[in-house]
């Protein structure tokens, strides 16, 4: 086994891992604010990519304008989803929430299929596709974009959660929703905020990966599940440990696909998911022994 090859797999694994990390943080933000695992999280990734495509092709917008439009459109869908499906729910038991977010995700995916068709679409890369050589491996400029944007988002996330009032309020909700309500935090508004942030983040993830992997109405399912897997490895934190979880998952998957068998690539993530849930439900880096209920 050549070193170059391993370097190549690791590099491409890191870039998909960054995407998983972004999706995983989206899962964690909603989970921490509301206690909901949003099964529709992956659909926002799909919407991000496809809205960008529409902005480019039908509205003829330049890329720099198409991306914010796509993020705004996906976020709007996130708001509608929270308002129309999550908030009116009369009996918000975990099973009902699982079923309604699954129902919502199928609905969004189905509508996307009717709007954009069943074909796979390609989105142009942000700045050309001349490969860059690093050591014996090569990466595309898009990979660099992915790393840079992921870093920026993680940084913004940190600033929001630790240095703004609304971010601190959301953290309070994640510690104890009842107590947060008692000190005057509007918990329902925080729930809406959490859906806004994570749908926007999902859309960004979808937009930056679309030029590499193409996009279609059904890409959200797998990406969403992998993102959830990253969040589980990170112990449902909305910070660094989920990022590391995503990177570990991306690299393991890429090495596994390259060195063992590409057919089992998707199985790797789920085997890791099951092992973590069985052995360390608090996440790979979690210390507390609290039960995930």
């Amino acid at each position, binding site marked *: 086994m050549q070193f170059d090859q391993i370097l190549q797999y690791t590099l491409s694994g890191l870039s998909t891992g960054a995407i998983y990390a972004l999706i995983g943080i989206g899962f964690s933000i909603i989970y921490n604010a509301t206690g909901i695992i949003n099964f529709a999280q992956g659909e926002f990734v799909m919407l991000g990519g496809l809205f960008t495509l529409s902005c480019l092709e039908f509205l003829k917008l330049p890329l720099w304008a198409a991306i914010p439009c796509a993020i705004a459109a996906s976020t709007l869908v996130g708001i509608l989803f929270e308002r129309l499906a999550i908030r009116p729910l009369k009996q918000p038991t975990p099973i009902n929430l699982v079923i309604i977010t699954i129902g919502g995700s199928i609905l969004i995916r189905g509508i996307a299929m009717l709007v954009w068709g069943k074909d796979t679409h390609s989105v142009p890369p942000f700045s050309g596709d001349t490969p860059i050589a690093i050591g014996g491996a090569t990466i595309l400029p898009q990979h660099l974009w992915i790393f840079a944007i992921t870093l920026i988002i993680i940084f913004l996330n940190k600033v929001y959660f630790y240095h703004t009032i609304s971010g601190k309020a959301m953290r309070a909700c994640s510690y104890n929703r009842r107590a947060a309500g008692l000190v005057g935090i509007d918990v329902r508004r925080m729930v809406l905020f959490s859906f806004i942030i994570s749908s926007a983040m999902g859309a960004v993830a979808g937009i930056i990966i679309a030029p590499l992997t193409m996009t279609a109405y059904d890409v959200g399912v797998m990406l969403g599940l992998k993102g959830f897997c990253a969040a589980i490895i990170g112990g449902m934190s909305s910070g660094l440990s989920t990022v590391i979880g995503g990177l570990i998952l991306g690299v393991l998957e890429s090495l596994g696909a390259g060195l063992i068998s590409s057919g089992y690539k998707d199985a790797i993530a789920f085997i890791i998911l099951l092992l973590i849930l*069985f052995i360390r439900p608090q996440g790979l880096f979690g210390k507390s022994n609290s039960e995930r209920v």
Partner: protein
Amino acid sequence: MKRDLLLFAGFSLLVMMAPQFFRGSYLMNVLVFVGINTMLAIALNLLLGYAGQISLGHAGFFGLGAYVSGIMTTTFSVNPWVAMPVAAIVVGGLAFLIGFPILKLKGHYLAMATLGLGIIFYITFNETYEWTGGPSGLSEIPNLQVGGIIFNSDVKNFYLIWGVTLAVMLFALNLANSRVGRALRAVHDSEIAAQVLGVNARLLKVQIFALSAIICSLAGSLYAHTMTFISPTSFGFNFSIELLTMVVIGGLGSIYGSFLGAALLTLLPEILRGANDYDIVIYGGLLVVMVMYMPGGLVRGISALYRKFVKQKPETGHA
């Protein structure tokens, strides 16, 4: 109890008379699918509706039953009647072993873990092509045979599948009204309270998970032997979601509801044949609407509506 038995006898009679009213191999074939899906929906309902434990991987057990049966009868030329119980034991045993770690999880985590399990099964069906034929599937699976009767026509298959489906229904109805059924509902309402009352909640959950998997395996084997061809696409994540939709639409914890849900979701795509692409939107919409407005499912929702609009009228008259 007597009323329940009478209801079941009436239902069985209606089912058995169905071939008199519905003719043609296309319709018979659809009704065979209704039967298989009813079994699967009942299996999931025992777990979700009674014990309150969600599974998004039941299509995997269905597929495993189909493949064990299919591979044994084609590659190893085993008699189908032997292959079916072997498949059920294999799947049940596997579910029992996985059940211990997986059912420690609750709610969202259980949903994700079972979903992962289902996808691992699906990938395995696709990748172990030397056994399963991979994506192109496994064909020439033999039909079942009793004495001189080979179950190879649609009408014969109808009686075979519905015979088994009715047996599964009767079993599930009895189980629901037994001590076990009450213990399951206790676990559903509060695991701690159930345990305080002497119910071994952990073992019970694993047992019902295994039982549910066995019913799925049985349905899978029957599916393989009636269709004589199986491929991984029938056992994917989408089918697990479809099963969930059937159970939710029919009503959690209602056996006849499972039949209603299975029948509706099997017939709907056939009726909407022209609007083939819309069915996924309709499933999603149905799930959302049902959970929001009729969380008890159709059977209970309709009877509640009936009470509200028909039976309350005399009362309002008095007042």
